[in-house]
């Protein structure tokens, strides 16, 4: 059998033959090839992902399900996950992004949770690259077009511009939903004698073998593959959401799976395997959009806006009535049984049959050779003496604020409905997004972040820094951290240095998660993000979720009050390695990012939370891209207030002002609260750097800019 034609390796083919006890037929080979693609099977990364801590007091559901769930208390859970849709967005930006948003929303829905908010991670090429404008405007319009119509607010996100994404933009979609803990829908609860029901849109040829497509390099030929791009219909999704939630509230669903990569096959075999039941599917009963589809095409179609339900035969009538109300197709396509096999019939004839667990778990793992890049350490050497201090500090700061990754993203988030569902307390344009939970005091706090530049310089430290940044932001706002989800966007694992970077990034992230008690509850891996013109930087994207006890103790940023004292909590000697400042000067590979300090980081988080809880400050902002200087500029602009600042430290001012990394925050503290604030931070590096006054932001020996000028560049409404 010519298994290579279908994209299977010899090892995989042999594993299949041994599990089946016979040679697979063509239909089975096609199904195996997709189910065992990198995208579906995680064969290159499964063993690495075990480094992540995934359990904890607050974890209700960990990795391996449609999404993770954390406990918000009083029988309420937050289900969340992030997922990449990079390759489709590179080829068909609007539809790729739209269906990425639709897919992640269904993941949340599949657990019985009502999706309450989305965020997006956008990674675009250099603004002057000829395709960046059309890719970025298409992707942004796709995210908005879908999210706005389904009525899930897009409340925040992260946007990065870098030449490494020139023809390989990334779109990572994050969604969070709420579900009472005793109403979670599980994929493990199917029993023999139940019905397999397909709810939602008809099945067409769209996205056939899309999962396999996501597992190869993007080449010029990818454009010719356009027919395999799925088309999103947010209207159908909105109906599907309402129908599924109505079915769930009426307790008519035994089990539910969304149909994403590898469509019906993936979703149904997963339920069969996890529930430990057999399943027979009659593909001739699947409502089709194209009459002449073959069984393998039906098996692998990635048509959007479909859900797979397991229903008790007694409830079928009621299920059909709900489907009819929402004008959705609803077809019984199979049944569960006590066998151990997963079988597909076509007009009564068997066309494929596997042991239920083979498709999801049977792919032999794949380990790639790993090699530390030879020039890694060389890149860390940078002669700081060769870097002159800025001659014109004002110009330096303004230029930094205008770099595309730091500049305001209003043009993006204005296209997103960030307020529908009326829960948005803090929307896009801020370090974190905050949602109220109706009927409760506590607030959900969400952060999405990434730092590909530091991951490129030092994957271990960069990985840790990426996770730490999200936790710092949550802690400063006063949130307890509940858990995170990640999208690991990397280039091909087949290049040893690239595989090494993947391993190291994961180790760094895991180290930080362990140290700060932040379990990884869901996530996804996207490999092969490279084009003939280059590979992307290692880009782990992290979405972290926290809970703020009440509005009273939520400490926002950008709220300076006249006369407040300004403090820098944290060390002054950060690093310019991978900083926006050095990047803007053209030094991509220079300096090493700061080492991750588990104790320092945990200590900072504790004190930051205490500061918010004890109302020790009027405003707080964890330092991130652009360092202290950009934090001062953003806070000043948002507060419409100036400040007079002195930095009485021997460290070079460019390092203090523009350095990045490590646990550091800028606080503005009312005079009366200064003693309390100092007590909270006693024993931790703390520097009083100035006071809020007037309408000019002045740092002695550096810049002095009228706030009006900063406001005109940094506008957040």
């Amino acid at each position, binding site marked *: 059998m010519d298994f290579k034609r279908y994209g299977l390796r010899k090892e995989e083919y042999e594993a299949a033959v041994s599990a089946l006890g016979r040679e697979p037929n063509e239909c089975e080979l096609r199904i195996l090839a997709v189910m065992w693609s990198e995208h579906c099977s995680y064969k290159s990364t499964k063993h690495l992902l075990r480094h992540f801590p995934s359990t904890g007091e607050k974890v209700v559901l960990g990795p391996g399900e449609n999404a993770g769930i954390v406990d918000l208390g009083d029988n309420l859970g937050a289900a969340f996950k992030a997922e990449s849709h990079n390759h489709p967005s590179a080829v068909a930006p609007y539809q790729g992004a739209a269906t990425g948003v639709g897919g992640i929303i269904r993941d949340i829905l599949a657990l019985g949770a009502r999706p309450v908010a989305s965020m997006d991670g956008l990674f675009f090429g250099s603004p002057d690259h000829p395709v960046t404008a059309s890719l970025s405007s298409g992707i942004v*319009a796709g995210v*908005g*077009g879908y999210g*706005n*119509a*389904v*009525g899930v607010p897009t409340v925040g996100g992260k946007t990065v511009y870098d030449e490494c994404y020139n023809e390989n933009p990334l779109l990572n979609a994050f969604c969070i939903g709420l579900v009472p803990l005793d109403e979670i829908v599980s994929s493990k609860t199917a029993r023999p004698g139940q019905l397999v029901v397909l709810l939602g849109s008809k099945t067409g040829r769209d996205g056939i073998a899309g999962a396999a497509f996501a597992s190869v390099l993007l080449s010029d030929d990818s454009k010719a593959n356009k027919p395999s791009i799925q088309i999103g*219909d*947010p*209207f*159908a999704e*909105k*109906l599907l959401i309402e129908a599924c939630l109505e079915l769930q509230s009426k307790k008519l669903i035994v089990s539910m799976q969304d149909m994403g990569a590898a469509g019906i096959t993936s979703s149904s075999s997963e339920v069969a395997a996890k529930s430990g039941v057999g399943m027979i599917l009659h593909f001739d009963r699947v409502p089709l959009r194209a009459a002449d589809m073959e069984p393998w095409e039906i098996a692998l179609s990635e048509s959007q806006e479909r859900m797979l339900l397991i229903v008790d035969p007694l409830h079928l009538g009621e299920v059909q009535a709900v489907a009819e*109300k*929402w*004008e959705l197709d609803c077809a019984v396509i199979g049944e569960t049984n006590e066998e151990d096999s997963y079988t597909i019939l076509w007009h009564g004839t068997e066309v494929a049959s596997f042991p239920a667990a083979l498709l999801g778990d049977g792919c032999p793992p794949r380990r790639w050779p790993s090699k530390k890049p030879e020039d890694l350490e060389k890149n860390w050497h940078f002669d700081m003496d060769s870097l002159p201090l800025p001659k014109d500090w004002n110009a330096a700061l303004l230029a930094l604020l205008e770099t595309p990754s730091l500049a305001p993203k209003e043009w993006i*988030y*204005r*296209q*997103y*409905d*960030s*307020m*529908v*569902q*009326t*829960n*948005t*307390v803090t929307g896009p344009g801020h370090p974190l997004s905050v949602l*109220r939970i*109706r009927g409760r005091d506590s607030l959900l706090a969400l952060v999405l972040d990434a730092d590909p530049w530091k991951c490129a310089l030092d994957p271990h430290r960069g990985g840790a820094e990426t996770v730490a940044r999200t936790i710092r932001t949550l802690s400063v706002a006063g949130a307890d951290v509940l858990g995170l989800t990640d999208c690991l966007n990397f280039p091909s694992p087949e290049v040893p240095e690239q595989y090494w970077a993947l391993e190291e990034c994961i180790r760094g992230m895991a180290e930080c998660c362990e140290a700060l008690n932040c379990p990884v509850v869901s996530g996804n891996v996207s490999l092969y993000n490279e084009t003939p013109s280059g590979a992307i930087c290692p880009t782990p994207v992290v979405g972290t979720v926290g809970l703020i006890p009440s*509005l009273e103790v939520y400490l926002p940023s950008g709220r300076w009050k006249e006369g407040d004292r300004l403090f820098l909590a944290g060390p002054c000697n950060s690093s310019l390695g991978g900083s926006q400042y050095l990047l803007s000067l053209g030094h991509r590979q220079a300096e090493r990012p700061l080492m991750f300090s588990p104790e320092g980081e945990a200590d900072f988080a504790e004190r930051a939370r205490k500061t918010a809880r004890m109302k020790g400050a009027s405003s707080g902002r964890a330092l991130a891209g652009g360092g202290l200087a950009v934090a001062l500029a953003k806070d000043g602009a948002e507060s419409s207030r100036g400040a007079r600042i002195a930095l009485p430290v021997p460290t070079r001012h460019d390092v203090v002002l523009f350095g990045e990394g490590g646990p550091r925050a800028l606080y503005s503290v009312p005079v009366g609260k200064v003693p309390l604030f100092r007590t909270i931070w006693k024993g931790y590096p703390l520097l009083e750097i100035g006071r809020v006054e007037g309408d000019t932001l002045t740092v002695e020996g550096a810049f002095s800019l009228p706030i009006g000028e900063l406001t005109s560049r940094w506008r957040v*409404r």
Partner: protein
Amino acid sequence: MKTAVVIFPGSNCDRDVICAVRETLGREVIPLWHRETALPAGTDLVILPGGFSFGDYLRSGAMAARSPVMEAVVAHGKKGGLLLGICNGFQVLTESRLLPGALLPNDSLVFHCSPCHLRVERTDTPFTNSFTPRQIVQFPIAHGEGRYFLFPDELRALEDRLGVVFRYSTPSGEISGEANPNGSVNNIAGIISEGGNILGLMPHPERVSESILGGEDGRIFWKSILSFFEKGGKSNGL
């Protein structure tokens, strides 16, 4: 005061507006599925909420305007009952010809979501009686097709009969191009029917009905409606 909120397939602000009315006024609100053919007995106010009814396919609001429930809604409006369309609901009202004009794609051609300042042009309507004349309020907008359009002679007629209730303005109340988020003629954000009982507006009062969401100007809007009924207003026009 009894309110019915119509839910079309694709409506997505129905729950928001139901909560805002219930929580601000503490009065009965009944969700009404679009396939119903009658309003609940004793309905005083019908609200057509925001969203993307029928996916906004063809033209926003076009298919919802032909939904089964609309016959009863139109009858309610025609006999003077209070009828409110917010965002997509405003589009349904123009598509139903209960209000003049049409809502076209924003002049930027992209969806626009942001807080917006409005000048209240009429304070003698059932929906705005608790605002002060020319008060500047902040209601957010979130739409892709909110450019209000009317041919010049009809526009003149609308302005002459003081049919404009809300206009996009600067924070200080100037009606300028800079304050116009979508290219609407004469900065029009909301208009009322000749009978004074049917209001359509693009901005969302239900999104600023609680301080935790960053504004409470919307409460004045809901309270106006309650006050209209409490002062003996009948849901059959002014």
